[in-house]
């Protein structure tokens, strides 16, 4: 949204001022600067939180970013070829003297930071040997605050250093241009000083001490990197004349005067550099920083450094003195040794009343590793409001009148006091509700507190999180605005909140239904969402909500349609068939899917008989069909023209308001023509459905981010379609219903494979909202319907109806040799320790008994599983082990919910169904620290391996059951996924394996070989059944299904059905049951 010029200037001014001050000082400043202007406050808060996350992300010029991206693609392969026992996982960045990679030492199976020095040592073998020798010497330092060097060597002329991989931020990042608190500063400084002292005593000078060479771990431990490297690199470079004239090794801003002059240096040079780091920690900046390197060096040699206390008046005098001494121009004026420096720092620690010892992580001192925004939100605040009111009541009998008056006053004071006491007591609860992200409740309670304690500080601090601001403008203005909170039963009242333009209405954070009404204009309805953005590393408070609505005269907007303004549009869904940006005209779109009743009108009007409605040439199996021939294909069950499931040109009773399905693209297009409308282009459809919104985290739905409770907002995974006006809280930003789920919808654009279908259907899982399928024009199904659009202008500029060519390449998958795979298989061995299994919950229905079981999973951690036991079948039972699809892993559904929705039929036909609650599912969170594990990394591998152990412990448990036939266990894996492909390869207990819509995904190429399914699938010994949809939109048949099928060994069988990702049950269950009968034997009913 565009702020006005004045507004933006105001935002700028406060933002700049806030940025210039330490984080601690900001809240008070913002409070004062923004006063009552809550919108201003929100916007600035939001931008500041974004600034903290953004971390100068555009600092390198575009040409460099682009070139590095090109280079990086090729580099990894080259390094992997040169350094065989290291495997590059990812680039960590460019360090002082070379590039640093996160790599795995494949011999020792540990993570290392691999630094490739950017120096050539190709010519002189003696120099090479010396380099390695000296580097080893420097690396012999063993100290908790010095990063351990594992190996130094060279391969093909490339010197490399493999060192301990320390997770954390560099001190430079921790400082981030702002002063540290004194306790953080001392905690870090003492550790670094101790490391330097130990090195100096061993005769090693660092020569390149700077804040980016010091890593601070999340636990507050400091690690100094690159001891002695500067010297080695300088010498090596001199020897090979690689340094260009005038270039100085090291980092100018941290150099000592003697270093800057190019003189010999000793440990006192490190003391100076350490002084620079101290200066930076206190003031947020380095003492000498001029426009050019030359000028900086000049300043270091000749200029006095700026006064510490002038830059940060809070700095203790003693600290300023320590820094002044360290930064003395003459080495002999500095501390004679780091020991002396440590003594001074300790003195300061005592003075500041802090307990600390060098070398250790001091208790109770937390280094600010967590990004500030997150800290502000999550930290518990010790300070609570204390109400210190104690009304003195002195009553004397001899002054009755006065006494009565006093009593009244006292009573009033008492009530007031009680109110304040009550309000103060609610504050912790507000904080608790906020932590639990129950923002409606937190906000309501906070507002009650505010009525009594208007400037309660905790409430003020929480307000940007639990509250939100809403501005609504409409063109024309003067429209009434209503809000209705989202709730499970949808019965929250609709409340009028004002008239447009509505500025900065304070509301609770959360989701709402918004209505804008003005007499004479078409009312506008939509959902709005204020959910916080969780970055994985921190939370960004989204900007305040702003709605700009263009109201259109009621008589211009066709009935049951919504107005969508035009403009440029680009597809935003994860899987996008095209990146093209196209121009859209203003248009109207049906708010509802075309219903059976609507379609009946078309038939009644002779729609199938009037050739004029059928404007698009028919093509079937690549061949054109004449209209007369084509029309013979389009008939209902009785042979009359109409949708495939209808009889006698009529729909089933009670289905008038259900979406019409079972129609081909041609019928949809003809209907649109009949109404004077069109099918929406993919661009129009998506604009109306999600208005360009897409998210890095989680799935985007028409109403915002997907959270649990999707069944209250859309029709996914149910028995059938629902009336077209279901789910008001699932409405899109333009007020369209059921764009996600219910009937999937035909779109206008043609592709070589047919036409697009968007939105997912009632039989699909939620994630199909983000995928666009393509089906032949003659395809029809009870899952596919449509809606229409109309141009709102006469302009003919709309560009969105173009043909879209989707050409998909199939990567070349080459499995590793058998001997390697055999080696890797050993990595999957695990301890069969005691399970300590117990049944913790039982539920019974007519058809089955459901047990929830707890047992010891991977790493001895308690894991959970669900077991469905069919009634009335002979024991021991065959069992099917389910590895669920993304509906469960993305937490749209709980595991038992998904099992019952998707696989009840399996249980009812006589086999037990079993599944383990894997980490990340609802009810079993992964620890927060692992959520940001990088795909393809060694941690990711470890995570996958641990997940597999959980699954296999589940099989161990099944084997202990008397009522289960341990020799008849099958696995079923709906949809794609790593575990489903690895599990039956490493696990020999399956007698049968079933996949539906499963394939190899291109991103498997990024995985370490020992977990890459490409290497393993040929080793799945059990017989395999694959069901795959010809039009699979998530794991396409040709690019993903086919490569998997080819790699699988015999015995295998494949059934290709004529639908999308999700097999129709009438195909799936008979096929699965027949397959299980064949591979495991029939089941016997009691």
């Amino acid at each position, binding site marked *: 949204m565009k702020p006005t010029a004045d507004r933006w200037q105001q935002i700028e001014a406060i933002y700049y001022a806030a940025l210039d001050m330490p984080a601690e000082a900001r809240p008070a400043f913002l409070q004062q600067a923004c006063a009552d202007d809550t919108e201003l406050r929100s916007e600035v808060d939001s931008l500041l939180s974004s600034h903290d996350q953004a971390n100068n992300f555009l600092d390198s010029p575009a040409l460099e970013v682009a070139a590095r991206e090109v280079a990086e693609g090729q580099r990894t392969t080259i390094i992997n070829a040169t350094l065989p026992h290291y495997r590059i996982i990812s680039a960590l960045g460019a360090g002082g003297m070379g590039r640093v990679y996160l790599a795995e030492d494949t011999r020792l199976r540990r993570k290392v930071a691999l630094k490739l020095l950017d120096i050539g040592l190709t010519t002189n073998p003696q120099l090479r040997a010396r380099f390695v020798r000296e580097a080893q010497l420097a690396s012999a330092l063993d100290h908790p605050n010095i990063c351990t060097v594992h190996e130094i060597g060279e391969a093909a002329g490339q010197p490399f250093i493999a060192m301990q991989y320390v997770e954390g931020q560099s001190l430079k990042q921790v400082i981030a241009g702002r002063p540290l608190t004194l306790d953080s500063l001392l905690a870090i400084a003492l550790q670094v000083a101790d490391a330097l002292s130990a090195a100096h005593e061993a005769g090693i000078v660092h020569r390149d001490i700077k804040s980016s060479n010091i890593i601070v771990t999340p636990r507050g431990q400091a690690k100094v990197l690159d001891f002695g490297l500067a010297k080695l690199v300088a010498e090596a470079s001199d020897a090979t004349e690689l340094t260009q004239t005038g270039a100085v090794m090291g980092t100018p801003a941290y150099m000592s005067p003697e270093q800057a002059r190019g003189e010999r240096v000793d440990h006192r040079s490190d003391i100076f550099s350490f002084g620079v780091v101290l200066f930076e920690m206190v003031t947020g900046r380095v003492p000498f920083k001029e426009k050019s390197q030359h000028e900086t060096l000049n300043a270091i040699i000749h200029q006095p450094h700026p006064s510490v206390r002038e830059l940060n008046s809070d700095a203790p005098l003693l600290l300023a003195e320590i820094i002044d001494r360290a930064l003395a121009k003459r080495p002999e004026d500095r501390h004679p040794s780091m020991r002396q420096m440590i003594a001074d720092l300790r003195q300061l620690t005592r003075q500041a009343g802090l307990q600390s010892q060098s070398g250790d992580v001091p208790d109770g001192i937390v280094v600010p590793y967590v990004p500030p925004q997150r800290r502000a939100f999550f930290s518990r605040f010790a300070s609570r409001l204390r109400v210190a009111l104690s009304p003195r009541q002195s009553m004397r009998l001899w002054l009755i009148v006065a006494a009565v008056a006093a009593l009244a006053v006292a009573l009033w004071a008492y009530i007031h006091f009680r109110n304040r006491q009550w309000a103060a007591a609610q504050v912790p609860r507000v904080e608790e509700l906020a932590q639990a992200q129950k923002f409606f409740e937190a906000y309501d309670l906070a507002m009650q507190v505010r009525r009594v304690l208007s400037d309660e500080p905790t409430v003020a601090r929480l307000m940007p999180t639990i509250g939100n601001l809403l501005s609504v403008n409409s063109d024309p203005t003067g429209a009434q605005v209503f809000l209705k909170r989202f709730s499970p039963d949808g019965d929250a009242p609709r409340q009028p909140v004002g008239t447009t333009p509505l500025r900065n209405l304070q509301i609770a954070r959360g989701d709402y239904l918004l209505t804008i009404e003005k007499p004479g204009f078409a009312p506008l309805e939509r959902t709005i969402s204020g959910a916080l953005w969780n970055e994985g590393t921190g939370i960004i408070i989204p900007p305040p909500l702003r709605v700009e609505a263009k109201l259109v005269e009621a008589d211009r907007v066709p009935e049951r349609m919504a107005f969508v303004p035009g403009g440029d549009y680009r597809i935003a869904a994860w899987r996008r068939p095209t990146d093209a940006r196209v121009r859209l005209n203003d248009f109207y779109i049906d708010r509802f899917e075309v219903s059976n009743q609507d379609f009946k009108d078309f038939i009644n009007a002779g729609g199938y008989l009037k050739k004029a409605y059928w404007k698009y040439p028919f093509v079937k199996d690549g061949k054109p069909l004449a209209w007369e021939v084509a029309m013979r294909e389009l008939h209902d069950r009785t042979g009359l023209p109409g949708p495939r499931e209808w009889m006698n040109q009529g729909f089933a009773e009670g289905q008038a308001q259900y979406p019409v399905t079972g129609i081909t693209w041609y019928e949809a297009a003809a209907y649109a023509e009949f109404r004077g409308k069109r099918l929406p282009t993919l661009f129009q459809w998506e604009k109306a459905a999600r208005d360009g919104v*897409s998210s890095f985290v989680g799935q985007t739905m028409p109403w915002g981010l997907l959270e649990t409770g999707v069944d209250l907002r859309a029709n996914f995974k149910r028995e059938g379609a629902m009336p077209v006006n279901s789910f008001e809280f699932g409405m899109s930003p333009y007020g369209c219903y059921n764009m996600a789920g219910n009937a999937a919808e035909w779109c206008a654009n043609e592709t070589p494979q047919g036409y697009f279908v968007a939105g997912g259907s009632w039989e699909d899982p939620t994630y199909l909202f983000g995928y666009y399928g393509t089906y032949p024009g003659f395809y029809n199904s009870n899952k596919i319907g449509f809606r229409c659009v109309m141009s709102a202008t006469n302009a003919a500029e709309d560009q969105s109806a173009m043909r879209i060519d989707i050409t998909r390449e199939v990567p070349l998958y080459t499995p590793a040799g058998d001997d390697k795979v055999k080696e890797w298989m050993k990595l999957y061995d695990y301890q069969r320790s005691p399970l300590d299994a117990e049944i913790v919950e039982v539920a019974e229905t007519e058809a089955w008994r459901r047990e929830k079981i707890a047992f010891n999973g991977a790493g001895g951690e308690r894991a959970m599983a669900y077991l469905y036991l069919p009634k009335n079948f002979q024991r021991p039972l065959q069992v099917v082990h389910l590895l669920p699809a993304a509906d469960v892993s993305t937490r749209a559904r709980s595991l038992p919910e998904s099992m019952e929705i998707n696989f009840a039929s399996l249980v009812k036909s006589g086999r037990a169904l079993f599944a383990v609650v894997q980490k990340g599912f609802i009810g079993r969170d992964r620890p927060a620290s692992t959520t940001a594990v990088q795909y393809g990394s060694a941690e990711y591998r470890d995570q996958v391996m641990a997940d597999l152990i959980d699954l296999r412990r589940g099989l161990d448990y099944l084997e202990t059951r008397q009522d289960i036939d341990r020799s008849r266990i099958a696995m079923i894996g709906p949809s794609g996924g790593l575990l489903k492909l690895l599990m039956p390869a490493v696990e020999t207990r399956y007698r049968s394996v079933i996949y539906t819509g499963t394939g190899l995904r291109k991103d498997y190429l990024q995985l370490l070989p020992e977990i890459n399914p490409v290497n393993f699938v040929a080793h799945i010994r059990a017989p395999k059944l694959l069901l795959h949809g010809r039009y699979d939109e998530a794991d396409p048949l040709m690019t993903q299904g086919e490569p998997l099928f080819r790699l699988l060994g015999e015995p295998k069988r494949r059934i290709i059905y004529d639908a999308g990702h999700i097999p129709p049950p009438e195909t799936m269950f008979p096929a699965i049951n027949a397959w299980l009968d064949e591979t495991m034997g029939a089941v016997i009913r009691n």
Partner: protein
Amino acid sequence: MTTLSPKEITQLLKAWGNGDQSALAQLTPLVHAELHRLARRYLSRESPGHTLQATALVNEAYMRLIDWQHVEWQNRAHFFGVSAQLMRHILVDYARRRRSHKRGGEAIEVSLEQAAVISSERAADFVALDDALTSLAQFDERKSRVVELRFFGGLSIEETGEVLKISPATVKREWSLAQAWLYRELRKSA
């Protein structure tokens, strides 16, 4: 490789700045050539990775494309502006094509397993950045130009100040806010 002289390049840039689209066809291969040349140098470790010299490399590449020294002083500002625009145009277009080539027509192909990882690509997502920058220009033209000059044009704070006739301190502040705003915008709609 091209054989165009700096002077010819300057002429082409001027022509493009005046709306001559055919100049683009001649300039684009030059930028691509620099891009790949730079990539090769990053790759072959020719550069002693020293930040200073890595910067020098990029500067050198920019210099070869844009002949700063030989532009008459009065035109410098205008000239920088045009070149930054050109770099933006070509690099965004390159990113668009490279992506669609790399992914075989599917612009973004991400499995749910990988969804958490995409965020690291956001800086390199020139296409999205280009969009966001266009939105920024709608209410703060100058900040969008700061970003265009700094990021796409490779100009320093001081040079950017010279072009826009504002102080370096102002450039710095605007640069910071522009980045915060853009980051949020990119986060909002990828």
